[in-house]
């Protein structure tokens, strides 16, 4: 069950990696794999093992980037010293983007 589900993901990712290298794309192969699997699922019912494995992976997505996230505290000094800019991007940048997008949405979806 588990192996069947992962096999689906690995094969679609491998196809994506192949296309990325073949056409010299600057997109991650996994994103192409995502698109290919999405298109496949538009025409085929989702196999049970794939559904199970995908549910599990998507639910624990954050586990897989935890090791890289820890790196925030071990950045080179010249990056760490720019923390006000990083904070501004994350808080101010996100707030402004939310506000602008909310206004645009209201405007384009009015009756």
């Amino acid at each position, binding site marked *: 069950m588990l192996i069947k589900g992962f096999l689906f993901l690995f094969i679609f*990712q491998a196809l994506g990696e192949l296309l990325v290298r073949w056409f010299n794309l600057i997109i991650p192969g996994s994103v192409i794999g*995502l*698109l290919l699997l999405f298109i496949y699922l538009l025409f085929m019912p989702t196999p049970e093992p794939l559904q199970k494995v995908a549910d599990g992976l998507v639910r624990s997505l954050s*586990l897989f980037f935890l*090791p890289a*996230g820890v*790196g925030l505290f071990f950045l080179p000094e010249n990056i760490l010293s*720019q923390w006000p800019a*990083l904070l501004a991007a994350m808080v101010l*940048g996100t707030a402004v983007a939310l506000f602008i997008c909310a206004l645009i949405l209201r405007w384009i979806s009015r009756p």
Partner: protein
Amino acid sequence: MSFDSAVDALFSSPLFNVTLTLLAFQVGLICYEKVGRKAWMHPVVMGTVIIVGFILLTPHEYPTYFKNNELLLFFLGPATVALAVPLRNELKTLRGIAVPALVIIALGSVIAPLTALGAAWLFGADEQVLVSLLAKSVTSPIAIGVTENLGGLVSLITAVTLFTGIAGALMGPTIFKIAGLTDDRLQGILLGVLAHGVGTARGFEISVRCGALAGLGMGLTGTFSAFMLPYLKIVLFG
């Protein structure tokens, strides 16, 4: 072999380092459930604190820790592909709002990096940091792949996307009120576009369809951004 060298050998094994990550994440998950799934207590926040604490308090070093966690990083790829499944399942919730949703996914994917870079630039960020901020609103597995390809700092983008998600999830509902955006379906899309996974979790607290649409917004934004950000980088940085 002395006890010290036995510990050294263990510290530099994938088994020990992956276990450390799993354990820290598990504790993070328990704390997250304890406080009622609040965005500021995301499992990664507590998990990071535990691992950073361990590295600082013991002779263990970050490069050794990171290198021996390659097994987990490998799963970022299949996990990205797996996003296709919820994307497919949630497609039907788009009915009736498809046009505004797709428009805001395309616009939001450009507005998010522009406002982030603008804010960081005002506070004097250098070019390497600015490039590393391009993918800040994109779901982490995709953001990591994109940032790697663009020549940004992977350790920076991981943390930045996470805290962007937390900030967006916390501020979202208040900003929707100020802007007068009342449709919970459109709120959901926006949470997914600008606050990815954390925003999606927040969306499910508002309503099921809000959460489902946030997941959809997250997936489509990630995919669209992977194609668009390389060009945005060329426009902004030549």
